[in-house]
């Protein structure tokens, strides 16, 4: 996970953070409502093209393979699903396939958007700081938390208290305490570090901030947004 999240910049067509956010929202709504294969395919194609546009070839290809594999499994297994095991396999395949586009757009946002761009875009929409700052922090902190969590799990294993089903049932309070306390302590420490860093970037100042990256909604953004919203509307009328 850590390697995948390495930041890469540059894309063929510049896409505004607001557009990515819009596509993300549209995708998650459509993923919940849309049931027809064709439209799910369209959603996936949109997310895939955006990934390729952001020069995330390797990641995009990986997702394409997973998608095709699960679609194939779904077609082959769907009719014959009878046993409990088969049904579970089937459910996992479907859920993964339905939410793959959402996940892909999310990763696209994480990988190809700088926090400063993100804040500038929110600012342009006249969101108050009270919303902008926590949201951008959330955005950045998700991958960090994952790393911390892996470290904590290792430390727990070291003490013979691995995060396993058996331990959760036999010693729930101990597992809970040993996982929660370091996690919270880490969170507080990271928050302190982030606030020190943001102070040095002038986030605490009362004046209006400027951003060196141009944040503007262009022709491409309008097209992508129309496609995303169009997919959503078409799924809304399907029922």
């Amino acid at each position, binding site marked *: 996970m850590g390697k995948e999240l390495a930041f890469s910049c540059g894309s063929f067509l510049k896409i505004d953070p607001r557009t990515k956010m819009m596509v993300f929202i549209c995708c*998650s*709504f459509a993923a*919940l*409502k849309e*049931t027809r294969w064709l439209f799910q395919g369209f959603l996936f194609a949109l997310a895939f093209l955006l990934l390729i546009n952001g020069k995330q070839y390797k990641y995009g290809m990986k997702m394409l393979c997973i998608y095709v594999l699960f679609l194939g499994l779904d077609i082959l297994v769907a009719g014959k*699903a009878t046993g409990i095991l088969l*049904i*579970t396999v*089937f*459910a996992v395949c*479907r*859920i993964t396939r*339905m939410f793959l586009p959402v996940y892909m757009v999310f990763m696209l946002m994480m990988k190809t958007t700088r926090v400063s761009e993100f804040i500038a875009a929110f600012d342009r929409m006249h969101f108050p*700081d*009270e*919303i902008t*700052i*926590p*949201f*951008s*922090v*959330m955005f950045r*902190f*998700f991958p960090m*938390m994952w790393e911390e969590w892996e470290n904590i799990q290792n430390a727990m294993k070291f003490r013979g208290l691995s995060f396993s089903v058996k331990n959760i049932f036999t010693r729930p309070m101990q597992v*809970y*305490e040993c996982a*929660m*306390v370091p*996690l*919270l*302590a880490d*969170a*507080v*420490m*990271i*928050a302190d570090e*982030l*606030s020190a860093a*943001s*102070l040095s970037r002038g*986030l*605490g100042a009362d004046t209006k901030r400027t951003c060196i990256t141009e944040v503007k909604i262009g022709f491409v953004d309008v097209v992508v947004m129309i496609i995303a919203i169009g997919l959503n509307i078409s799924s809304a009328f399907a029922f």
Partner: protein
Amino acid sequence: MKNNKLKTRDLIFAGVFAVLYVAVIVILASVTGMIPVVYVALPFIAGVLLGPVYSLYITKVPKMGAVIILAILAGAVMSASSIVVLFYVLALGIIAQIILSLTGYSDKGICLSYAVFACSTVGPFLVLYFARDVFMNACVQYYGQAYVAKLDAITPFWLLFVQIGIAVIGGLFGGRIGITMNAKHFKKAGVA
């Protein structure tokens, strides 16, 4: 509490704790989602587990509006099924904030306000009660017919009140654990 306005530092804390809060809910939901009976008890489990997150957050940012921001962030993520959930969670956040302000951020106040806020995890279930067909249709897609039949059988309307009830109990319990943890670990370590 001399300066009651939220500063950048407080907002960053809100973001970090919201991530913890949301991550635990999402992981719990996807793990318990497979078994209907456990899934329905999610508000209780989440209430107990998230107590320490909430109480440490309140101890770190004892300011007006802190809970409301957490409510907005958590609500925005949970409202994937319906936008109504966001307003529901926001309303709970405002009530929790009022309780906190009235009790002056005492241990009891934190516990009580968390018992209210813990009801937010009932939010995603609201669709199950008020827009049953939509919810069931979606579930057929995910888990298949057998799962839906079972879920339908074990969730009559009155279960909504049971869920809120267990959320409150879980919240009181979790808040208690959180306060104990604060005193036992974080105050000593200088974190809280």
